[in-house]
């Protein structure tokens, strides 16, 4: 056993998957094979054709061998899953399965590995193992593309094989619960949708009352050797008759509050389709703001994340957006005091503060970058169309949009949930 195998074994021993059940399945090719074999048997007994009898024997032999090999090869197979904790809608995420064959004699061939629970309509291909020898481990991988945000639970791994002849299908189910938090899709925004944090005309707006490496003036102090000659304030030195140097203030990031105005919903009443686009848009705006140097905050129904910066904050925002579920309460009063520069208002209620930008998620052409990949665009369009397809009436959605804009307390139930 090599070093790699030992490492894999350690990993398995720590949190290995538990076998739930083993099962032989009634398999269509197997039924056809059995019926054909019966027919051959009938022909062999019907007339004196020894060769047909031999073929019948081979048929029975194939059936027996198939049962033995498929059963014994899967008998010693153990599978463990390695899944990422986070994923994004529309982006491929890798699932890895550590497949260990504990059998001391029989190798295992042609195993397909599936998850028993799969997201509806998401692209979730199987992992495959061509071969794993006795007392050997291999790693099989596959990539999933989630089409819904939310928390998805991977529970049971189904390993099945029809090896050797495709006659008997045998499966083993392993229990290994893991959670994947699927964040909203990562939408690239048009340049300029979120203005730069230090745009022209905003000079001084970002100064703080602390010393720092910024450009704004904070004060003066006496010159000490080592100070750069450029920092000497000559006028002030002339007045005081002593060399003084300018001290800049610490720069302060501009703040951006992302307000996600969503209609009413509940556990039973889902959000309309555009809400998913709105959530994705909020995530994109937060990401763009982070990139442009903003300190961002997020307000949504039942959700308030204060101003902060950095990847951890952005991750927290995206996680919160991933878990965002329909609520029966509207967003309360929008807090604008901390937002010194900009409020990005996503929804259909008009912006209530100066400098606010309102983005309509139902018109992605207005804010989506042309660099958007076709897959993302397709997913976005699909999520916007979903209610239309489900209800079969485009106009109904339009009416809902208008009605909701005027009277936000009247949501339309949707058969498709906002949860993944």
């Amino acid at each position, binding site marked *: 056993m*090599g*070093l*790699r195998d030992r490492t894999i074994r350690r990993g398995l021993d720590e949190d290995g998957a538990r076998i739930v059940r083993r099962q032989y399945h009634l398999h269509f*090719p197997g039924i*056809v094979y059995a019926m*054909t074999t019966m027919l051959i048997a*009938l022909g*062999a*007994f*019907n*007339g*004196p*054709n*020894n*060769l*047909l*009898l*031999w*073929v*019948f*024997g*081979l048929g*029975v*032999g*194939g059936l*027996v*061998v198939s049962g*033995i*090999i498929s059963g014994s090869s899967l008998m010693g197979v153990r599978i463990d899953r390695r899944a990422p904790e986070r994923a994004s809608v529309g982006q491929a995420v890798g699932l890895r399965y550590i*497949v260990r*064959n504990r059998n*001391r*004699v*029989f*190798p295992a*061939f*042609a*195993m*397909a590995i599936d998850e028993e629970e799969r997201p509806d309509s998401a*692209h979730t*291909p*199987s*992992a*495959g*193992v*061509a*071969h*794993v*020898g006795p007392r050997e*481990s291999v*790693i*099989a991988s*596959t*990539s999933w593309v989630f089409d819904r945000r939310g928390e998805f639970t991977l529970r049971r791994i189904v390993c099945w*094989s*029809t*090896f*050797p*002849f*495709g006659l008997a299908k045998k499966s083993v189910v392993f229990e290994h619960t893991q959670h994947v938090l699927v964040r909203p899709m990562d939408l690239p925004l048009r340049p300029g949708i979120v203005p730069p944090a230090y745009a022209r005309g905003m000079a001084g707006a970002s100064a703080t009352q602390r010393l720092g490496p910024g450009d704004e003036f904070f004060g003066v102090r006496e010159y000490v050797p080592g100070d750069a000659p450029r920092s000497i304030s000559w006028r002030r030195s002339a007045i005081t008759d002593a060399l003084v140097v300018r001290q800049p203030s610490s720069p302060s990031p501009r703040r951006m509050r992302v307000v996600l105005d969503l209609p009413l919903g509940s556990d039973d009443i889902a959000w309309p389709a555009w809400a998913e686009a709105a959530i994705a848009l909020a995530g994109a705006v937060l990401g763009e703001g982070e990139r442009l140097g903003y300190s961002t905050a997020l307000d949504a129904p039942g959700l308030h994340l204060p101003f902060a910066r950095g990847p951890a904050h952005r991750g927290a925002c995206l996680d919160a957006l991933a878990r965002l579920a329909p609520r029966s309460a509207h967003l309360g009063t929008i807090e604008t005091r901390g937002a010194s520069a900009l409020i990005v208002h996503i929804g259909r209620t008009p912006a209530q503060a100066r400098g606010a930008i309102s983005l309509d998620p139902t018109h992605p052409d207005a804010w989506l970058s042309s660099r958007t990949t076709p897959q993302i665009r397709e997913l976005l369009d699909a999520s916007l169309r979903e209610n239309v397809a489900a209800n079969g009436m485009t106009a109904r959605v339009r009416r809902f949009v208008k009605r909701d804009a005027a009277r936000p307390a009247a949501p339309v139930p949707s058969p498709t949930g906002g949860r993944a």
Partner: protein
Amino acid sequence: MMGSRAFLISAFITIELAILAYAVAAGNVAMALLAAPIVALGWWLTEGPAKLRLPKVVTSLGVAGVVLWGILRALQGGVDVDGFCIFIVLVQLLKVFEPKKPRDHAQLLTLSAFLGVGAVLTSNMLGFAALLLLLVPSLAISAMLFQIHAVRERAVEGGSGSVRLAIGRTPLAHLRGTVGAALLLSFMISVALFVFMPRGLGTQVFGAWGNALAGRVVGFSDRVELGRGGSISQSEATVLDLRVRDTQGNSLSGGGRTWYLRGAVLSDYDPDRGTWTAAREDQPRPVRLSFSLAGGLAGHAIRSSIPQDATRIVQEITLRGAPPGQTYLFAIYDPAFIETAHVMTLFRSNAEGTLRAETGGGQISYTITSVPDEPTRPRKPSPREKQSLSPAIASFAEDVLRDADLEPDPALRPLEDDLPAARLLAAHLRRNLSYTLDLTAPPPGREPIEWFLFEERRGHCEYFASAHVALCRAVGIPSRVVTGFLASEYSTSTDHYDVRESDAHAWSEVESSPGLWVTLDATPEGTLRAAQPRPTGLLARARQLIAAIDYAWVRGVVGFDEHDRSQLLGTEPVRDADIAARLQGVARRMQVGGTPLILRAALTGALVGVATIGVGLALLALWRIVRLPAIARRGLFAPRDPVERLARDLARVLSRRGVPRTPWEPLQHHASRVSWPDADAARAHARLVDLLYAARFAGSPPGPASLEEARRDLATLRSAAGQPTLGPDAPALVA
């Protein structure tokens, strides 16, 4: 080589083999020449680098057309195996040109399997069997590789295309082992079923399925037509197998002995047409024995009143491909007793001493016991009257006899001179006329025998036999023409005669005493053999070998019947009547015994089941206890790891050196404790330890060159292991 490419190659070979097997089985040369190349072309176009594929809709339309053709054919002529197989081949030819998903590959492989079954229903010849022996493993390997291919396609389907299957070490070795084990186990199960399954339980209650070898040309005819031109068939196809023995089982074959296998006996000659046919008075009144054997081996006495002390000859005969309907059961002498396991109705002609059987065709095996010296039937002598075709023939025959001082007039000639006279006439023909295979038709209006005797003076066996009978009858000797086979090609390895189509022959029979007919052959033997040359040397040996294999195949597999089965297993032959009686007995006992008996039977069954499971569990436990360390360490099919072998051999050498290693001691530390008689051995030891460490802990397995060097080092250590250490300064390995 375990990926899709391997599967595609394997599937292609399987499809080709299936088509070829059916073409050989059906004797369809056109299919073999056309279909196989078309499949190859289609496969190359669709799966090769060009990837030229017909649109699915085109192939689907084609398949629909083939289905329509199949339906029409079935409506017109019923469902038959040939039509079904041709339908499959046509579908395969279309489907190879379409873009293929795993489902399509599976369909092609399934069709190949069906084609194989169809071919089995069509033929059981050795050549086909050889192809079948290739087709079955090919099908199994393709099916296995297809499973891997399908898993891969399933993983890749709709994905980014970069999905790769996880694959362990030494997959090919494991796959080879699995394929071998699967084939071996399947073969063993099939052999067990083949041997233990009682034969003849079904009596074609569902009609004849397929028609193995039906319609095959036998090369024998029950009608001689002298007026035809053409040529005698020289086909080397085996028609029947013959084994001759006495009643004690002693072989009567070999030693250059030839046997005349009687088929049709032709007594009536039509000089206008030049044809010999069976006697008219016998033909419409065959003795029908209503001999129907409903499954299982059965014997039947054909002739009664045979003296107990009469010499008997047993002839085991296997007709390779009898046509359906009535067929002659060839025998050396007049049959007295017959054994067979086939379903048939026999027709007996007492006057001719021949047997015919009505069967469904195909291969027929039977054993006939004959009594050579016993007259066919006690009856009055045939009339010894002159029956001359022409004055010239009569004069010719009389002259020959007179020259030998034999009386030509039957009224004056003693009966015991008939046979010498007939032999004399036969010898005269052999001496003065020549044999040829070429048939030249006599001029219009000429009587063929006269033309042969006096003008052409050369001809084939039918002319010689006809002329001999004509001459014999001209001098009042009762005689007749017999057609059948001359068995002369003896195989010592299998103790049987291989009788081929070209062995078809005609000769004459002369009644030497009332009811006792003697075989005489007027055909020149030497010139017959010269005209029908047998291969000699290496070719002859090869031919004999093939004939022996063919015979073993026919007797051991194709002709394996209930008689052989019972002999092999040492049991009584099973008859359907026995089975019916047994079932009735069980039912009666159930009725009499009532519920307690049923409960007892159920309990016994349950106990047997529990005992079987218990034995299985005990074996499993034993397996877990013993764990078969050697196999368990490396797996059943995995090749032995060379590094592991090196480590084991090194441990043995060091143990011989007197420094055995404890299991927990590191190799390096153990090596430091060993002292060697010379520096070479110490260096060899150091190199070996380094190699083992690198292989085990650094994950760098040694290459072939390193392994070779390691083996040399090991040899050095082996030679040094028995030598004493020279002193305290002897070199030791420094860790």
